[in-house]
């Protein structure tokens, strides 16, 4: 994993600068958890909320990561999340109206949401690869379209069945860890499996090697027989599916669609991707950190621990993220070919 992105031989300084932000972040998290541990129920609540808040950011960031690793910048994640949430909700809702069993209508919803976002991924690949359109424009088109279309087509008053909570037998009995990690909706677990999956796929498989190659040096990949265009299409569809799951996570927690319900999560996911420096495990750390700040913020606000206005609590996650990044002083180096269409010579 470490050799994958480092262009120069890793020096001690580079190693420190790579792990410093995580060390700071972990230290902060443990300090706060420790301070709160006098009340184990609160600590558990914050832990579980961290996992819940991190999951959609994680999947959104993975969507951006797979695209950019393949050489396509995707700023349309926000639109993909919103559109998949809408489509998934409508499919679940309509199939529940047709009196299908709850499980079936939920599964159909997830399939519908994921398919919608994958289709958007295909569209963006078409823009970037075949039309050689500017990728920032393609992403913006997706964002405006998704907000406009879902608001235009949305009719209030629809409902859909709730997602069940899955408690992992045995593991959920564990003190502290049980409630934090093993008592969530099914899609939340899936999000964390996706990170591990993408990490292994990206750094341990042929697909991963080719993906990184077409993002760094498509010409070289082409020379050894990789079909760059086809691969970029395929990866944007896979990436779209990830964002689709992120959208369905929003439905899992809200059980209904509402106008502009993604509310900037796709953009935050973009920040998480950059924070995680285009590495799945880095993204995991960044999403957990931001999720933790978010969870902490709502717990503190709930406790009325400090006598400050609620708006200031709302700023906490975002200010802390900027602070961590500024202190750590790390710049993400994007894949070399990200943003430019590949011209065969």
């Amino acid at each position: 994993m470490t050799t994958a992105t480092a262009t120069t031989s890793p020096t001690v300084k580079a190693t420190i600068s790579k792990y410093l932000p995580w060390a700071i972040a972990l230290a902060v998290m443990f300090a706060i958890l420790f301070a709160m541990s006098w009340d184990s129920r609160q600590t558990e609540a914050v832990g579980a909320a961290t996992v819940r808040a991190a999951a959609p950011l994680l999947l959104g960031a993975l969507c951006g990561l797979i695209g950019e690793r393949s050489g396509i910048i995707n700023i349309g994640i926000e639109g993909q999340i919103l559109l998949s949430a809408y489509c998934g909700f409508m499919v679940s809702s309509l199939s529940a109206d047709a009196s299908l069993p709850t499980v079936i209508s939920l599964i159909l919803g997830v399939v519908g949401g994921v398919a919608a976002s994958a289709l958007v991924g295909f569209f963006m690949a078409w823009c970037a690869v075949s039309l050689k359109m500017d990728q920032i424009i393609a992403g913006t088109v997706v964002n405006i379209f998704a907000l406009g279309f879902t608001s235009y087509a949305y009719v209030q008053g629809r409902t859909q069945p709730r997602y069940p909570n899955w408690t992992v037998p045995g593991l959920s009995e564990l003190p502290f860890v049980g409630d934090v990690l093993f008592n969530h909706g099914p899609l939340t677990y899936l999000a964390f499996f996706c990170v591990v999956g993408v990490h292994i796929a990206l750094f341990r498989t042929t697909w991963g090697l080719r993906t990184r190659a077409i993002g760094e040096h498509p010409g070289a990949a082409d020379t050894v027989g990789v079909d760059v265009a086809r691969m970029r299409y395929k990866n944007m569809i896979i990436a779209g599916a990830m964002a689709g799951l992120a959208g369905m996570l929003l439905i899992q927690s809200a059980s209904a669609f509402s106008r502009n319900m993604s509310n900037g999560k796709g953009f935050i996911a973009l920040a998480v991707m950059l924070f995680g420096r285009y590495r799945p495990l880095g993204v995991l750390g960044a999403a957990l950190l931001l999720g933790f700040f978010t969870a902490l913020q709502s717990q503190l606000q709930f406790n009325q621990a400090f006598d400050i206005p609620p708006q200031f609590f709302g700023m906490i996650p975002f200010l802390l993220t900027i602070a961590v990044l500024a202190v750590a002083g790390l710049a993400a180096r994007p894949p070399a070919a990200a943003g430019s269409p590949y011209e065969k010579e």
Partner: protein
Amino acid sequence: MIERLRASALLPFLAVILGLIVGALLILVAGKNPWVAYSAMVEGAFFGGNAFGRTLEKATPLIMGGLAVAVAFKAGLFNIGGQGQLLLGAAFAAWAGFTFDLPMIVHIPVALIVGGLVAALIGAIVGGLKAYRGTHEVITTIMLNFVLGNFTDWLASRDGPWNDPEGGALARTPLIADSAQIPRVGGLPTGFLVAVGLAVLCWWLIERSTFGFEIKTAGLNKNAATYAGIGVNKILILTMAISAFLAGVGGAIETQGVTNRFEPGFNTGLGFDGITIALLARTNPLAVVPAALLFGAMDAGSSLMQSQARIAPEIIAVIQAAILFFIAAPTVVQYITRARNVSSEDDGVRLSAGWGG
């Protein structure tokens, strides 16, 4: 000259037509009449009552947001934070508006500049973090959107320092003084002229000044710029400050020319539209004006379209997305319309070039 103008106007013209066709199809699917809808939209945007004034009013913040994004792009910076900067400018212009007691000729510009400068300060911080700490401006501006949104909410909220004592439970600031309100001439908002003036100024700055040359050089190739003796860090900070200043003034004009006070939630989404406008204008400051007028007219006409044809105004966003797509995809337009010589006026700036930091 005429030929060149025709050539460069052909693609946008065809893109708008195709975008409207996409919208018409959606309206048909919903079982409504597109002709009725579009005639209501045109009437609501240009004729009857104060329609044209409303179009100019809607176009003004779009121009400012578009300029903010366009200028930043020239230095290879992507400012997604127009929303937060606009809110900050709107709130601080309101503060300057209801606090000071000055003659109109001074009060209007003072409030505008206060709004702009506070936003510029935020922009300078973003630029500084990018220059000296390598923090990606996309991250910081996104995060600051949420921070500034919350902050301005608080300023006007009931616990906030600038709450309107006569507003009861309402979250809003007091009305600004008459002397800070940008007047209307014959029903037309003069804030629009301020925005157009700033667009021309931006064009001059980018295309005609030495500083603009340095900005563009830094945007195209940082190493070459450094080699040529350009202080890239200084450029990053100043450009980001200018960009945020423009968004802030956009918010200030909203406060002083339209709402006459700051009310959280009133300006939602305006900052993000700036990205669309800048892309539509292909980051050319002068082209930002017609692009903003087009979208402003659609926004202004959408309410009459809703009341006359019973069509949700959100369809406008779908049409706008289609227009942006077609402008960026001349090959598709050429394929559909069979028109010849459809070419995009490309200045060679790749918008995603700034992504790398």
